[in-house]
């Protein structure tokens, strides 16, 4: 039997905890993997994973309403029916506010409104270290980031099937909303990267609730673990209470920033303490994923 494709998502709730630095290092350490940057709002992985672009595919999200100035008689019905306040005087659709519901087009008595395809981003398929690396460029202020994340993951999955990759590493966005949900649903395991700060702790609790809501197995890694012993203990307590294993602690290490400035992953750039702990963490993650296959 063909082994199933495993998907590891790296998320955090809070931004800036070190998701991308860890995910990019994993991409470097894994022998055979596809890596996907699902933080489509602000994708940073391409800055530390040198890559060659193979294909750029336009992504069409929702359609947008366009009012034909020739056919419009100025009755203003569209303004009344639009719930997104996307139609401005006298009568032009503001594209960033239009959610593509098409209610205005349906209600316009003069059929003066067309729903037009709208490119809201680009899916980029590239190669990094001779292996697939996928990310997206989303247009400024676009909606539908969840849909773009799903599109990226679909593409990654089909490449995995065609080219026999059995691991997909996903770098997720911050938060707990639409794009995060799209990044973690259907994954094998979620690694939550947190930090021992007040907001790190609060945000950890919310992302833990989210992974439990969707019943996805998860574990925690404490980054910058040595900045506060007291806060670190609070994280351990939350994890114990929720039965989530803490599988790694990474000390604060300025090499992480230096690696970023050099455009490299931490594990390539440095042999310091953070680099060593990320390598150990990767070994633990691998063992854990193998145990899931055995089951």
């Amino acid at each position, binding site marked *: 039997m063909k082994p199933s494709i495993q998907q590891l998502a790296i998320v955090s*709730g809070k931004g*800036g905890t070190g998701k991308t630095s860890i995910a990019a290092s994993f991409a470097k350490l894994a022998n055979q993997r596809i890596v996907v940057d699902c933080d489509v709002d602000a994708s*940073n992985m391409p800055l530390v994973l040198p890559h060659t672009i193979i294909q750029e595919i336009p992504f069409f999200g929702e359609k947008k309403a366009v009012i034909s100035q020739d056919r419009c008689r100025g009755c203003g019905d569209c303004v009344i029916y639009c*719930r997104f306040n996307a139609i401005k005087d006298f009568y032009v659709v503001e594209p960033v506010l239009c959610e593509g519901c098409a*209610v205005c087009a349906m209600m316009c008595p003069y059929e003066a409104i067309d729903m037009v395809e709208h490119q809201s981003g680009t899916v980029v398929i590239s190669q990094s270290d001779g292996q697939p690396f996928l990310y997206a460029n989303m247009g400024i202020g676009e909606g539908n980031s969840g849909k773009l994340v799903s599109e990226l993951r679909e593409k990654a999955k089909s490449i995995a099937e065609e080219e026999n990759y059995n691991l997909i590493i996903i770098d997720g966005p911050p938060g707990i909303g639409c794009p995060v949900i799209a990044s973690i649903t259907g994954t094998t395991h979620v690694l939550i990267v947190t930090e021992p700060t007040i907001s790190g702790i609060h945000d950890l609790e919310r992302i833990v609730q989210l992974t439990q809501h969707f019943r996805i197995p998860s574990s925690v890694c404490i980054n910058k673990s040595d900045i506060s012993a007291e806060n670190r203990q609070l994280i351990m307590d939350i994890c114990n209470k929720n039965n989530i294993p803490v599988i790694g602690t990474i000390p604060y290490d300025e090499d992480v*920033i230096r690696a970023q*400035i050099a455009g490299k992953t931490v594990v390539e750039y440095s042999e310091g303490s953070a680099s060593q702990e990320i390598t150990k963490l990767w070994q633990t993650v691998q063992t854990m994923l193998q145990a899931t296959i055995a089951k």
Partner: protein
Amino acid sequence: MNIAIASGKGGTGKTTLSATLAFYASQFQTTALLDCDVEEPDANLLLKINVENRYPVNVLIPQVDMDACTGCGKCQKVCQYNAIVLIKARPLVLPELCHSCGGCYLACPEHAIKEIPRPIGTIETGNSNNLFYAAGVLNIGEHITTPLIDEVKKEHRHATLRIIDAPPGSSCPVIHAMEHSDFVILVAEPTPFGFHDVVLAYQVAKSLSIPCGIVINNMVEEYEPLRNFIHNENIPLLATIPHDINIARSTTQDNLIDYMISNYGQHIQNIYEYCTNRVIL
């Protein structure tokens, strides 16, 4: 005056700056802090204002009267979000996918659809002296954040200064948070990630025609591309705050805002004065 604080990248210090600036400003005028990062609202962890009011935010979703429904499928056809699907000629509503546009309700020829409220989160409000606070808290598992952001922004309209703590990213939630602001303070880290993402946040503000100022935070060393960008785009640099591990180290018992004011009071004052003087001019 509404001032939004944004950064693109998460963890650059938006919330610490928002809360400190709001606290500082409240000595001089009625100030509101509106936490629009509804996925992870953290501002009150720093302000520690007693929450006096909580109320749910609802969105409208369709409810189908099965006796009146003839199974014609018009509702499914008009829905652009696949939030209403026909199974054996009976419509099934998928609430999480619904954008509350009202299309199905308008399209139903039998008037078999009515719209009912569905909670997606909570608004929390409170105040301490001259400082008013409101935050949106998204319910776990909800996808759509923008109605909650819009609701937070309706709070504390009486305040003469309203500071909006925006979510990370550059997509529609950021637009909703920034919209109608008079000024945007960008918080940039002098790193490749911080630079890349603050450019995105700047472009969002630009697309809304809102003027910006920039604060460099967590400064360890100069990052040339960021400097050049600030120079080329002619963005006023309001302050440069050094990297200070004590900020990250603080615990819930500590008063981070006191620490910020006593160590970086001059920076905060400069930012405040720049923003207030802009409006007078």
